[in-house]
């Protein structure tokens, strides 16, 4: 090729693809809601929407954290366990000192999660152990610690201060606090990832770890940072969990990691890092929650839900690969070595 026929400036095709990707989820959501509503109009009642949003809030907060980690080409499977530990911690805390303001509780929850995140991140960074293995291990360990601590005890709603439970149910202008909090987390993370140098460095690391190192990006520090964010958000989700459900035992959040990873992958975050947005991840969380709700309303056997989640993951990664191949074929004009 010669340099003369360089591509003329045009709209980034990658951007378009990403837009299409998120649009796909929105369309799927719209169709789902439409079908469900036709079969049962109460699906769109205020209460029902509130329930879905509340359910989404917790999953979305987790998914945002997970997206940050996945964008750096890592994964955090310990989020469910971290959520449990944080929920039990704040539950116990509130039992003992019911007068604590909600904001302090939120901070404590996030701090508990952040500590777990530091452990994960440090093991990945200094131990050179793949994140999958590290977080699989801490999934066991953190859950074990929670069981150890909680024993058989359960914290019931009547043991929690009503102020805290109100936080789980109260609304501003009809929007529950939890949802507002989730939106806040989403917007802040989204803006940092898109508009701040640190955020862009996370994408760079995921896109090409080697190039990131050569570009002088502090890869190790950012990796730990990503895990701390994921941990802290899982801890925060633990507080939301406690406020929403009121009943906390050592098993809180068991198996959540699967839904979270599903939300992120369905939301278009590439498993090998470098692309995807937290908006997509949050949309993925909304879609999964809505599916669960719709199944109940449509009286489709609840058991289909997990199968649908699995199918969606496969569909999402399969579609992403096909689109990527097509885009790559379009962008690439020469040079394809064996890789």
């Amino acid at each position, binding site marked *: 090729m010669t340099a003369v026929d360089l591509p003329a400036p045009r709209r980034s095709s990658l951007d378009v693809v990403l837009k299409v990707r998120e649009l796909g989820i929105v369309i799927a959501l719209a169709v789902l809601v439409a079908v469900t509503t036709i079969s049962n109009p*109460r699906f769109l009642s205020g209460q029902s929407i509130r329930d879905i949003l509340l359910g989404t809030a917790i999953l979305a907060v987790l998914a945002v954290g997970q997206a940050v980690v996945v964008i750096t080409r890592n994964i955090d499977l310990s989020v469910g366990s971290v959520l449990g530990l944080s929920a039990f911690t704040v539950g116990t805390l509130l039992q003992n000192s019911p007068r604590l303001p909600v904001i302090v509780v939120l901070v404590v929850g996030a701090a508990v999660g952040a500590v777990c995140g530091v452990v994960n991140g440090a093991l990945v960074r200094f131990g050179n152990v793949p994140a999958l293995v590290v977080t699989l291990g801490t999934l066991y360990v953190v859950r074990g610690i929670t069981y150890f601590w*909680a*024993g*058989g005890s359960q914290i019931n709603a*009547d043991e929690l201060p009503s102020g805290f439970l109100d936080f789980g149910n109260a609304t501003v202008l009809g929007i529950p606090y939890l949802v507002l909090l989730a939106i806040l987390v989403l917007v802040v993370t989204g803006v940092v990832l898109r508009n701040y140098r640190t955020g862009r460095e996370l994408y760079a690391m995921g896109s090409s770890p080697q190039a990131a190192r050569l570009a002088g990006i502090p890869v190790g520090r950012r990796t730990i940072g990503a895990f701390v964010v994921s941990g802290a958000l899982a801890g925060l989700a633990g507080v939301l969990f406690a406020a929403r459900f009121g*009943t906390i035992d050592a098993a809180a959040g068991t198996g959540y990691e699967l839904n979270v990873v599903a939300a992120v992958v369905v939301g278009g975050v590439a498993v090998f890092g470098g692309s995807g947005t937290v908006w997509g991840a949050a949309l993925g969380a909304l879609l999964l929650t809505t599916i669960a*709700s719709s199944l109940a*309303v449509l009286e489709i056997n609840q058991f289909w839900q997990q199968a649908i989640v699995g199918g969606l993951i496969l569909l999402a990664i399969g579609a992403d690969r096909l689109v990527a191949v097509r885009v790559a074929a379009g962008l690439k004009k020469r040079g394809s070595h064996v890789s």
Partner: protein
Amino acid sequence: MSQRKNLAVLAVVALTLAACGGTTKSSTEGQNTAAPETSAGKADPNAPLKEGLKIAYLPKQLNNPYTDVEVGGGKVAVGEIKGEYKLVGPNDASASSQVSYINTLIQQQQNVIVVAANDPNAVCPSLNQARKAGIKVVTFDSDASKTCRDAFINQATTQGIGESLVKMASELAGGSGEIAILSATPNATNQNSWIKVMQTELAKPENAKLKLVKIAYGNDDDQKSFTEAQGLLQSYPNLKVIVSPTTVGIAAASRYVSASSYKGKVAITGLGLPNQMRQYVKDGTVKKFALWNPADIGYLAAYAGAAMSSGQITGAQGEKFKAGKLGEYTIGADGEIVLGPPTEFTAANIDQFNF
């Protein structure tokens, strides 16, 4: 058909198991009831209760407040008869982990295993192994198959519970309207027998105006029950009563309703723990619910097990034994020992109970 035969041949080759023709479910029906003949020897009603008996409790899972109360009663009883109390159990309500624990208890040479079966059949082979080793098996809460336990402590007669659930539902619905059941798991033995009785009751003319629209399953998981309650109310706008014969379900449903716009429109009843339900009774979400005293179940199980291990009883129908503060009990058909009638809790009496 020929394909199936081919596969059958394949199977024989693969597993080198001699099998003539196809072994199907119907061809084996009734063959699997061979229970080991244990506890030979006759009951000696006057035998004293042995001291130092090792009595182990294996509930469905450990982190359940209801279970904690039950085994708490057992601990008291074991203390009274100067035995060794032990509590083991899985964190997940799965039969496979229970089997591992039963095996462990056999190794530890316990005298009595008091177990709530997660699956009536899956635990059977292990329980029978325990019985072969001379261990007495008492089930509570959720029975194992009759062929693999010595006695079953029934909280209340199935009939009694089913009737009282329907009675409460009918009162709360004002005699007519839609009701739904929020149960635990679809294969929970106790739940299903109660539901069966309820369905029979509902079929009676006096309940003709009550319509059971759905049986939902919350898996005795707080969150799942919460979501299921949510789904019920969305799907059935005219629902008047949710009956939840499980403590996890009733608490989750009450919590959902108390914080939602359905409060006051939909009544919740069923079987619940007073401590868990107090808040919802006081805020008016729940008018009444019922339960036996769970501590008494564990308590009674300890005495029944000890009596058997000491040779006072063998588990045969009609035998009598003393169960400490609870007085004398008679063993019913199939080794069932019925605790007594359930108590109804309302705003008026709930503060008298603490469990």
